[in-house]
């Protein structure tokens, strides 16, 4: 795959609100045509960063470049970006068509052409024939579609989405996620999504920047982020991660020798420690689905340990077990798919657990 050109570049961006340091040296690039997510807990600066792109928020130092052009001093109305607001910001005094056509007035199109383009935009978001409706008579999902049409009709270089799905119910949200991905592929515009929902970010993005306290903690594609998080914080924010204490014995030639509680002596590849790890207080982390509880007669493909089941949570398609490996103090979580023929085990049962060194990640 050839590298796409850069659409947005942050160069050591800092932002202060009085004494509060909201953005602490953001340096990152977003590629053209990419579906990029800013993921983080509330207050981490992700919305502030998005608003510096839109031009609603100035920066204290550094530079924001859009398509090679420094945006310093360029007001929001002259930037090649459009935004879908968290509240959707649909103009309540206008009809759906007037909302969608709002930004086209400056283009002074003939009436017929304006109507055609508004119609096309509405059709693209699945609201064909809704043009004459009053904006306040729309449902949440419809408002969002209007907001999308209103932004996309201007053919921006970058579409900014500020937690657009957070106000929708679960079903609607999942449907809109799929539709947003489809729309992004169709129009080919760079989408930048702000979200605090890790699942949403994983589902939709080409790449994700995880932010904590005004800094980007890790910037990677969803799979890398999930499989090889570079810190415990990132690991905990995205999905569930088990940790067991480990000691680093030696490091040489791209191999790391460790001794981990419950697993014993192991040799890991260097890429299994994406964050620097050394000395005391290290830990190995692993996802609940990377371990397997073996039933009688089943053999492990790699390694095997003995464990006691301490808690069972039954979810229908899945069962979550809290098990304690022999030689460890705290239980770890294992998730098993309830495939046909697999029994659900009871609390207190002793069982064999299969695992593989390749699924482990070393953290400081």
């Amino acid at each position, binding site marked *: 795959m050839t590298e796409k050109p850069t659409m947005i570049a942050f160069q050591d961006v800092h932002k202060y609100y009085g004494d509060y340091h909201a953005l602490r040296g953001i340096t990152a690039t977003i590629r053209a045509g990419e579906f990029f997510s800013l993921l983080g807990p509330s207050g981490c600066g992700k919305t502030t960063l998005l608003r510096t792109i839109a031009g609603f928020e100035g920066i204290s130092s550094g530079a924001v470049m859009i398509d090679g052009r420094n945006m310093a001093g360029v007001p929001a109305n002259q930037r090649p970006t459009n935004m879908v607001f968290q*509240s959707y*910001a649909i*103009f*309540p005094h206008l009809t759906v068509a007037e909302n969608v056509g*709002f*930004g086209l007035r*400056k283009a002074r199109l003939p009436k017929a052409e304006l109507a055609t383009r508004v119609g096309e935009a509405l059709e693209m978001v699945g609201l064909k024939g809704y043009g004459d409706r009053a904006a*306040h008579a729309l449902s949440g999902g419809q408002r969002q579609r209007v907001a999308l049409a209103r932004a996309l009709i201007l053919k921006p270089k970058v579409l900014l989405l500020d937690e657009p799905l957070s106000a929708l119910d679960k079903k609607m949200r999942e449907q809109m996620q799929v539709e947003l991905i489809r729309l992004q592929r169709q129009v080919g515009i760079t989408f930048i999504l702000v979200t605090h929902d890790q699942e949403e970010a994983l589902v939709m993005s080409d790449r994700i920047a995880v932010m904590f306290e005004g800094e980007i903690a890790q910037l990677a594609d969803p799979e890398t982020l999930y499989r090889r998080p570079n810190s415990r914080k990132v690991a905990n924010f995205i999905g569930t991660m088990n940790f067991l204490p480990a000691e680093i014995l030696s490091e040489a030639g791209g191999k790391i020798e460790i001794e981990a509680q419950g697993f014993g002596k192991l040799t890991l590849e260097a890429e299994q420690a994406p964050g620097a790890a050394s000395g005391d207080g290290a830990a190995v982390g692993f996802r609940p689905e990377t371990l397997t509880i073996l039933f009688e007669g089943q053999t492990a493909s790699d390694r095997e340990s003995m464990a006691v089941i301490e808690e069972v949570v039954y979810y229908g398609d899945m069962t979550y077990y809290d098990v304690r490996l022999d030689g460890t103090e705290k239980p770890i979580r294992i998730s098993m798919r309830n495939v046909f023929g697999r029994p659900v085990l009871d609390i207190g049962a002793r069982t064999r657990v299969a695992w593989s060194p390749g699924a482990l990640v070393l953290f400081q």
Partner: protein
Amino acid sequence: MSAGQRKTRWRDTEAANGLLMVSPTAIYALLMLAAPLGTILLYSFLTDGYLEIIRDFTFANYVEAWTNELYRSVMIRSLGVSMTVTLVTVLLAFPIAYFVSFHVEPSKKSLWLFLITIPFWTSYLIRVFLWKVILGYNGVVNSGLIGIGVIDQPLDFILYNVNSVVITLAHAYAPFAILPIFVALEKIDRSLLEAGQDLGESKFVTFLRVTLPLAMPGVVASVLIVFIPTIGDYVTPQLVGGPEGRMVANLIQLQYLKLDNYPLGSAIAVSAMAIVTLCSVIFVGLNRRYLKGPK
């Protein structure tokens, strides 16, 4: 539904409760508002006799009220004054309301509103008198301007004419005009203004296309709140209006108390009311597309 429920006594129903709650106000309004209004309406169709009212039905009072040059000119002047006052007041109130809503810190907004109501701490009458002191021949404005050498003769166009009535009324009604506009501006979702700019419009055009239409319900309310009472204002024209500043309320007072012509006074009063109603209805009608609002 069981028979027992259906037999619930009327006075326990919600409708009865509601009626019970509004009835003191309703009775008060009927006695103090509807009854006098009815009486005036009735008077306006009766015939004036010397010191008494003759119970002969007639349209003569209305013919007099609408054809007599004096009455007509006073009525037109009243309309003109109150339209000017409304225009001046609302135009001055809007920037103040806008400033408090958009540029004052949220924690200080109530302080600002409190400050805006300060003129109400003194009685209306005293405030009107104060304007006399300010605008008079030897008043604050004239002696000030003479003192700093801007003029050497006192200005006489600022008291005892229509101008002084407009100035005084505009000041008196300013808070009434500010508050509804402020409320309408406060209700505007600030992200709408960002959206306007995001979609390529400048701040000023966003104001025209988003802020102003959304503030219109407040502006309409302000216009009505100022226009309706000022047209019938009595005290201000009486005290600072002089002979050229007389308005319709002064004329009605003249008919009732000086000339003892209740029927003609009533006919002028009813006519004034009709004109106010008509103007208000036309104004609301012109702005009805702004007033629909979300449900």
